[in-house]
């Protein structure tokens, strides 16, 4: 669509408009869940399993129940007897018909399957009374051997769920031509064979999760405030799980302090709060503590990847074969089994790869369930192919930039609708310029010279330069495609646009923000469409009473699905307004032009009416065309015809102190292409945050479990979320290759940074260590691991 400089300046599409959301967030006015209170509220105190796998022999609640301020203590068995729910917690993505899916009840009744699983709930008058009482609930466990790692799960000696004779949950594959893949690998001049570990990560949205359920005992309604990314999905699932009538449930996600996937689940606490508040007629609430979150909120990643990448003598790819062993954790939560599938289609990356074979096996362990975490399957895929490409470059003896150039789809030239070997159609792409620009931006030529100088002088601090050209799949999703993957919902998004009687505009958004700036971006789309000021637009969202239809925010879908729905609804409003204007002008609608917010008859510019003025005419309905309904309000449910495929090239620059093994990320350059940008300021912010999250996986973060499947670093004392001090300034630039599958030409950017950065950083670390003969290092590249890797490569003691 045409975007004029005038509308950009006025805050339309393409403007670096400052965010509307900020005022209440910089002053403390915004209300998060823990800020909201209801009269008579009871606090839940969560009694959680301290062992990974056990039979619950006995629970003594008497000491806790008699403590001051404690209303009651309910064990899992007692809660089950209360018949508060009609179904286990949902898994919406049973990826195969024979997938094993052990029932996951909100509170365990006889067996526990991970540390942190609920075994009893305290109800108390204050958060401190609840916290005190938890300590006095005595639980006797009869321990069972835990399955603490994926490797143990695969050995199938001990079982994470005793009623199942294997830990395997499913096998899922895309394997169009296994013999062809095998033949290509067998005939290849070069084959890189690698094993990569995607360690478990704790998502750590800075706002911990929390809930508040407020009943209206006489009316039968319940309002659930939750720190959720998915109020609409949650409403459906709470109704289905509790058996309470869906139309009586209202879900509100007030200000939500980050999500990153960790807040898209349907959690025991949400079900408990609703069911108990309904039963007791009192508001019920809970706020997670940070250390509790390691067992009460799902984790991310958790995969072992086996990659075989084959090429001819010149490094031109001929085949890739991938096998994933994915750690489900103890239960299938909402999207657990599907996360590896979200990456499955992308294991060839941005490279034309004739033969493609992907297999994933899901395995149960006695650890916190895994589920979506920023990028969800795609950072893993990008990491595997981008690490393997560097390894292949070493094998072939060419540069890491050159190996990429030789293999980019369509030779790095622009393309539309490229059929990938996994069966998807890439909407558009143009990879070469992102690499060119990233190399220039980072001055890689200069960095290589400096690297050479340091190598020759034996400097303690060695330099490493890492590249990554990623492609991601976002804009979830065409509903039929999701149906084909056994996903339990559609992928459309809903929007309503209305012009109020005074000419102001309300937009109702089905997608739900938690930091992404929807209020600003949606206002900009309306400003451009309608030729009005973005200040005249208010965006309503995140409350199922205000926005009854929606599928929420995850998978970088908000703009390319929800934003497009808003643009389409605006178009419908404009078309209706055009008819009213034509009626006023006594002209045919097709003779009425719409320019900069005003309708006029072609050739008679003196006669015009502004679209905002027509709001009042549509409201009074005194003189509308025959048969036209009053009001200017239109809605759209947009089901995208295809996914969107953003891409980009990142350059990471690290310095490694070879004496200490310390890695410092000293530079980061990101050139991303997310199609048309609605607000470049917001795009850059998304890249910055995403890059740091991926760099954190590369260098710092890992959820560490001991042999008994206890997590040993659940707090921020020892789970190393990076601070400003560890991170460099990030330099960004962009190219623009519009999507061909939606009318805004937009793609998505919420996860791009994370998808590009882990591979870029580890490629840089390995690059720095190349003189030692190092070809790989496991994440996170901690000082200890770097030192050991150097020592092993040098042939010294480990």
């Amino acid at each position, binding site marked *: 669509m045409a975007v004029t400089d005038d509308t950009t300046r006025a805050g339309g599409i393409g403007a670096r408009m400052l965010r509307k959301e900020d005022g209440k967030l*910089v002053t403390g006015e*915004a209300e998060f869940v823990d800020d909201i209170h209801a009269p008579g509220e009871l606090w839940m105190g969560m009694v959680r399993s301290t062992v990974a796998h056990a039979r619950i022999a006995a629970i003594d609640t008497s000491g806790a129940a008699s403590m001051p301020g404690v209303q009651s203590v309910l064990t899992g068995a007692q809660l089950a007897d209360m018949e508060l729910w009609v179904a286990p917690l949902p898994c919406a993505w049973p990826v195969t018909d024979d997938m094993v899916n052990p029932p996951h009840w909100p509170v365990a009744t006889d067996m526990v399957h991970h540390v942190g699983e609920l075994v009893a709930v305290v109800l108390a008058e204050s958060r401190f009374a609840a916290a005190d009482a938890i300590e006095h609930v005595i639980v006797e466990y009869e321990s069972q051997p835990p399955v603490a790692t994926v490797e143990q799960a695969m050995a199938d000696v001990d079982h994470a769920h005793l009623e199942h004779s294997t830990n395997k949950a499913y096998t899922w594959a895309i394997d169009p031509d296994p013999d062809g893949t095998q033949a290509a690998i067998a005939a290849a001049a070069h084959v890189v064979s690698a094993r990569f570990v995607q360690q478990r990560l704790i998502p750590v949205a*800075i706002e911990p999760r929390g809930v508040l359920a407020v009943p209206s005992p006489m009316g039968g309604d319940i309002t659930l405030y939750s720190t959720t990314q998915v109020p609409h999905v949650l409403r459906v699932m709470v109704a289905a799980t509790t058996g309470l009538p869906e139309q009586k449930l209202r879900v509100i996600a007030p200000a939500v302090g980050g999500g990153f996937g960790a807040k898209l689940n349907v959690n025991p606490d949400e079900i408990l709060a609703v069911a108990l508040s309904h039963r007791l007629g009192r508001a019920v609430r809970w706020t997670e503590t940070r250390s509790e979150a390691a067992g009460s909120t799902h984790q991310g990643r958790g995969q072992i990847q086996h990659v075989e990448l084959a090429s001819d003598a010149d490094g031109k790819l001929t085949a890739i074969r991938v096998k994933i062993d994915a750690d489900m954790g103890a239960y299938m939560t909402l999207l657990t089994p599907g996360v590896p599938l979200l990456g499955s289609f992308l294991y060839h990356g941005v490279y034309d790869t004739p033969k493609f074979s992907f297999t994933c096996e899901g395995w149960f362990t006695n650890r916190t369930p895994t589920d979506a975490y920023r990028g969800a399957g795609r950072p893993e895929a990008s990491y595997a192919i981008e690490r393997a490409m560097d390894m292949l470059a070493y094998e072939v003896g060419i540069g890491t930039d050159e190996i990429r150039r030789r293999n980019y789809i369509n030779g790095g030239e622009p393309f539309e609708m490229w059929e990938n070997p996994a069966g998807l159609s890439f909407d558009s792409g143009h990879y070469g310029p992102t690499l060119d620009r990233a190399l220039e931006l980072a001055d890689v030529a200069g960095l290589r010279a400096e690297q050479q100088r340091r190598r020759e002088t034996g400097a303690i601090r060695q330099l490493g330069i890492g590249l990554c050209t990623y492609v991601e799949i976002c804009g979830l999703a065409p509903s039929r495609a999701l149906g084909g993957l056994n996903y339990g919902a559609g992928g459309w998004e809903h929007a309503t646009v209305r012009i109020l009687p005074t000419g102001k505009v309300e937009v109702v958004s089905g997608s739900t923000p938690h930091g992404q700036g929807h209020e600003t971006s949606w206002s900009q789309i309306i400003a451009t469409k309608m030729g009005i000021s973005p200040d005249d637009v208010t965006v309503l969202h995140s409350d199922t009473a205000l926005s009854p239809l929606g599928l929420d925010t995850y998978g970088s879908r908000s703009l390319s699905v929800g934003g497009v729905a808003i643009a389409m609804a605006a178009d419908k409003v404009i078309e209706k307004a055009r008819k009213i204007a034509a009626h006023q002008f006594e002209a045919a609608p097709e003779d009425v032009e719409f320019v900069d917010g005003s309708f006029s008859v072609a050739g008679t510019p003196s006669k015009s009416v502004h679209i905002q003025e027509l709001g009042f005419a549509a409201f009074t309905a005194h003189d509308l065309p025959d048969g036209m309904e009053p009001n200017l309000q239109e809605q759209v449910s947009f089901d995208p015809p295809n996914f969107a495929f953003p891409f980009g090239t990142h350059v990471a620059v690290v310095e490694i102190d070879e004496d200490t093994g310390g890695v410092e990320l000293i530079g980061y350059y990101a050139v991303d292409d997310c199609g048309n940008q609605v607000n470049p300021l917001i795009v*850059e912010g998304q890249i910055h*945050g995403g890059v740091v999250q991926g760099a954190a996986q590369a260098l710092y973060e890992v959820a560490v479990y001991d042999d008994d499947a206890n997590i040993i670093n659940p707090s921020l004392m020892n789970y190393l979320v990076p601070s*400003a001090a560890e991170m460099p300034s990030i330099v960004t630039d962009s190219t623009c290759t519009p999507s061909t599958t939606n009318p805004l030409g937009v793609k998505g950017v919420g996860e791009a940074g994370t998808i590009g950065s882990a591979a870029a950083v580890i490629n840089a670390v390995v690059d720095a260590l190349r003189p030692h003969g190092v070809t790989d290092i496991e994440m996170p590249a901690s000082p200890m691991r770097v030192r050991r890797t150097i020592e092993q490569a040098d042939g010294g003691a480990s």
Partner: protein
Amino acid sequence: MVANAVQIRLSVNGESHDLEVEPRTLLVYALRDDIGLTGTNIGCDSSSCGACTVLVDGRSVKSCTMLAVQAEGAEITTIEGLAATSDGDGLHPMQQAFHEYHGLQCGYCTPGMILASVSLIDEYPDLDESGVREGLEGNLCRCTGYNNIVKAVLQVAGKEA
């Protein structure tokens, strides 16, 4: 129902509050639950994240590291009271800079980050970028990658990034 309650008087944002709290009550809970100033957020349980940072006599303090009873006699400034400490009738310059540089996304760490930044440049007016980064080491943000936070703080410090 407060066990072993003690009476304290806290001065917050220029207003005096008489409270009855348990001796163990952390300042952050007195501010949030007893006074109702919920702009101060809680992000961890190990004094690691800095979301609860407030100013105590002008210096940044993680309000989860201080008992409410220890804050008696001090002047506490929370995010709700920050704008009033500056000239003019709008936002405090640090709040304005966070807005103008897109130094926040979800906004949960923001009150603590802003107050830590105010204290930092008050104490060290001649900071460069690495000084700002080191100085904010105790405040975690998961959204912004710190890029624009650092720019905002440098701008307020008179060092346009």
